[in-house]
């Protein structure tokens, strides 16, 4: 019995974290975008509008679940689950601290990318099943985008994997402890800056975030693949989207920004609050996503494809070769 409980409890914790993330991040998005637009964002429900998103969720819960006539029923009904479940699975390998991980997967990084790329399948189901032209166009664009940016995203972390020699996210974090010359933290964002830049661009595109939000461009496609959804089915799509930005930011934090560690502070001091540091760093990453969202205009789809295929892929491949060369030459230099 306790074994069953031990298997289920972390999963329930992940579900709870995902819900809290959804509620907090939507509030944060509205506040941050509001501030960037020189307005206040939500103000009235609760102190500083903090209960606004909770109220929104309750409202969504009490709304009629409209299934339009003429939809491809199976696809339409299953799509929210097909988007939601992979997004929940992605929490399995995130290292909140040295010990606080749901699974100790040795292939954590690859696993997280793999489940995140399944989300595109759900988006395609939603777009096709909705029997709506906007949804169809939105889903097709989302698929094109995923296809173009999956490869640079996966390639951009390979230099880090080469240095660390492991796909285990916790080991990648541990490889970043300490400092260079006592000042610069050994975070891979410094040693692997081009890799990080490509990761950031590709992550934004994978998340369908501005400036790559063609799949649900409000001004042209209504709400993209989510146009025909209402009630909690829409809630699921929405929740998964926010949860995905959390996951992507968490990967960026663990691969490039030293995970739960802080520079100049010994690990023994921060051990008790490591998960808090990790979550704060992740939220800062999401804040940067939102900042970008409030700043940049949308790119055109041909520009998007050109950027992905003609720039990012050759550059990442070149960077992988360069990293390999430098590492091997360093080894030779160290040996002789």
């Amino acid at each position: 019995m306790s074994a069953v409980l031990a298997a289920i409890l972390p999963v329930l914790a992940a579900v709870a974290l995902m819900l809290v993330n959804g509620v907090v991040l939507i509030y944060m998005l509205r506040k941050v975008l509001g501030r960037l637009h020189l307005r206040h964002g939500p103000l009235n429900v609760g102190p500083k509008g903090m209960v606004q998103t909770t109220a929104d969720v309750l409202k969504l819960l009490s709304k009629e679940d409209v299934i339009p006539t003429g939809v491809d029923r199976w696809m339409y009904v299953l799509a929210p689950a097909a988007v939601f479940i992979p997004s929940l699975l992605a929490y399995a390998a995130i290292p909140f601290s040295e010990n606080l991980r749901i699974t100790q997967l040795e292939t954590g990084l690859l696993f997280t990318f793999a489940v995140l790329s399944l989300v595109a399948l759900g988006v395609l189901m939603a777009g096709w099943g909705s029997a709506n032209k906007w949804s169809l166009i939105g889903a097709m664009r989302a698929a094109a985008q995923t296809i173009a940016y999956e490869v640079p995203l996966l390639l951009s972390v390979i230099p880090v994997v080469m240095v660390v020699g492991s796909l285990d996210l916790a080991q990648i974090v541990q490889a970043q402890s300490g400092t260079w010359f006592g000042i610069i933290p050994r975070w891979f964002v410094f040693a692997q800056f081009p890799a990080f830049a490509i990761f950031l661009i590709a992550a934004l595109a994978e998340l369908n975030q501005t400036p790559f939000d063609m799949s649900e461009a409000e001004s042209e496609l209504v709400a993209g693949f989510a146009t025909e959804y209402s009630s909690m089915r829409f809630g699921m799509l929405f929740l998964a989207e926010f949860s995905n930005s959390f996951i992507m930011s968490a990967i960026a934090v663990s691969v490039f920004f030293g995970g739960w560690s802080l520079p100049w502070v010994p690990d023994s001091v921060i051990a008790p609050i490591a998960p808090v540091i990790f979550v704060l760093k992740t939220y800062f990453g999401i804040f940067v996503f939102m900042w970008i969202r409030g700043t940049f205009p949308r790119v055109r789809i041909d520009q998007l494809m050109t950027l992905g295929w003609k720039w990012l892929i050759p550059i990442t491949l070149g960077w992988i070769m360069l990293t390999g060369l430098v590492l091997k030459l360093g080894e030779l230099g160290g040996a002789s």
Partner: protein
Amino acid sequence: MPHDYVVIGTFVLVGIIFVMITISTSNILSHQKPSEAKGLIYECGVEPIGAPWVQFHVGYYVYALLFVVFDIETVFLYPWAIVFSRMGMIVLVEMFIFVAVLLLGLAYAWKEGALRWR
């Protein structure tokens, strides 16, 4: 560890149950009053014109083919990257050849105009 995959299986199960519970809660809490107008597909307020599944020009099927090639390449690169620091110079040379062949392929596709969005 095999135990971890049990946890992942639990994840899928809990996910399915969670989706079912939320959507049925919502269905219990809400009024269901379907009507003809409500069931119409949204098309900016007018009645939908033509079939929903339009002949859609999938402008990226060539990209999709290239994607398969490059995705598999990435799959090959991951194990290589893991053992990279533990092996000698030879892994570097091998990977240079592998990546160079792929870059040649990309250059060919580029020259043939496969990377032009139409």
